[in-house]
């Protein structure tokens, strides 16, 4: 089990390899479809994303009477929808990693290599376990996109993920796809 602690850096994530089980402690910024599209369209990010991690997640957020936000369910959403934008967001905003589920394609994999980023896979459906790792909701940006689509700044402790695409051109998804494809040919 490896640990990745805040502040994150390109150097630190370059050390990570496909298959590494990692516990992330520090800050995460949620961002899914609408955020990626808006960033890609060139709208300036409301927060400095350099050396940060984006989490593909539409959390269920509740607000207390005193205005404090807290998260009740926060599993990953399918990442492949951000495939058209992700590599450019890596380039333009200097992020060091992305957390999601289901993996991403060749464009993102090339982006990971070129800009020193990593794709972390969280366990899909594990909304309760992952919400427990979130200590606080520190801020919110672009709430005009709606709660699930806004940028939520979260503090997490030992958030469990697996590196499935690293900064060296390796993708577990491509590997499993190719190997299972060979197996399928034999079994058909």
């Amino acid at each position: 089990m490896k640990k990745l602690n805040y502040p994150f850096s390109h150097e630190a994530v370059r050390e990570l390899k496909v298959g590494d089980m990692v516990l992330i402690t520090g800050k995460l910024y949620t961002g899914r479809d609408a955020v990626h599209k808006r960033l890609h369209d060139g709208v300036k990010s409301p927060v400095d994303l350099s050396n940060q991690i984006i989490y593909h997640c539409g959390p269920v957020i509740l607000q207390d009477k005193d205005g404090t936000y807290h998260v009740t369910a926060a599993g990953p959403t399918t990442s492949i929808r951000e495939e058209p934008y992700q590599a450019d967001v890596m380039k333009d905003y200097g992020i060091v990693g992305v957390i999601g589920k289901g993996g991403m394609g060749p464009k993102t994999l090339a982006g990971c290599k070129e800009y020193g980023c990593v794709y972390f896979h969280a366990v899909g459906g594990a909304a309760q376990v992952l919400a427990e790792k979130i200590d606080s909701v520190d801020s919110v940006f672009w709430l005009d996109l709606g709660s699930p689509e806004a940028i939520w700044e979260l503090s997490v402790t030992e958030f469990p993920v697996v590196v499935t695409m690293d900064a060296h051109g390796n993708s577990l998804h491509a590997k499993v796809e190719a190997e299972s494809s060979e197996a399928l040919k034999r079994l058909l």
Partner: protein
Amino acid sequence: MAMKKKPMKKAIKKAIKKAAKKATAKSEKKVAKKTAKKSAKKTTSKLPTKTPKKVLAKKIASKTPMATTGSTKAGNSQSFDKDLEASLVELIRVTSAELPDDVQKVILEALAREEKNTTAEYAMNIIKANIDLAKKKSQPICQDTGTVLFYVYHPVGFNQTKFTKLIENSVVTATKKGFLRQNSVDSLTGENSGVNLGPGHPSIHFHEHASNSIEVKLMLKGGGCENVGAQYSLPHTALGAGRDLDGVRKVILDAVHKAQGKGCGPGVLGICIGGDRGAGYIESKEQLLRRVDDANPHPDLAGLETEIVETSNKLGIGPMGFGGKTTLLGCKISALNRLPASFFVSISYMCWAYRRQGIQLGSKNEIKKWLY
């Protein structure tokens, strides 16, 4: 069998808009409050009410549950409706927060099978922890509470229109309580109804049966797994799949391969051979109402079910597509007649968060028995 009727357009739209506004404003507060109460309530509420069998039989014989008739006095009727709604809301809560025993059993077996210190074992451990935590906190296992699919089995002379209304009310309540996410979106405008009602939502399937009892089964099926479902038309040249069971086997394995980990595997397949395109998909989902550990009475289909699971688990896709020993937890297949010209194989993929439950209603519309 009857699908949910088209909505009564304007009136329903108005009601939805009104409810949506209320729901978005109030649901957050309510959920927070209710959470504390839930665990206490839960222990008692999932216990079936114990009534001696003979007495029950008499009651049922003399008086079928309220929703079937609708002809009793108004005061009684209202209280019966309230009881029924409460039973349905409890069904939704339990379905959303707790996996049935047969599903948990195969998940634990899958965890035991994976090699130690692998990403596959890691994923299965997180899945196990999540199942336990959701039950303990009485909160949704997955934030995607999915398509809400009701299957209602009822006696002759049952009032489907009334029951549909009560199901809709219970869905609105369950959404406000946070057992269901606001998950129903207008396909043209993208607008979220906020209460999980709208054309096709919830999905309700009625079946008349010979018994006097009313049984309600519920399945919550998330979007990730629904997206990897598939329908094949045989013969399939590229896969070398002909119009026979071996051809069926080939297209099913192709679907499992195409899904990789995207359906939040390890999953369970519901499959229908034959039918028209619509009937095939509906039947494939109803196969998911079977217990994972049941036996298919048709020997050829029973054999194919076992073979699909065994072969899929040799593909090495594994939990979440990380690679590993368990790609499928189960496979359920049935066959409908087809036209000579058509040969469809319809495949529904259910994620590991296989949320399905069922209840039998008692004479006072209370939960008499849990079905899984």
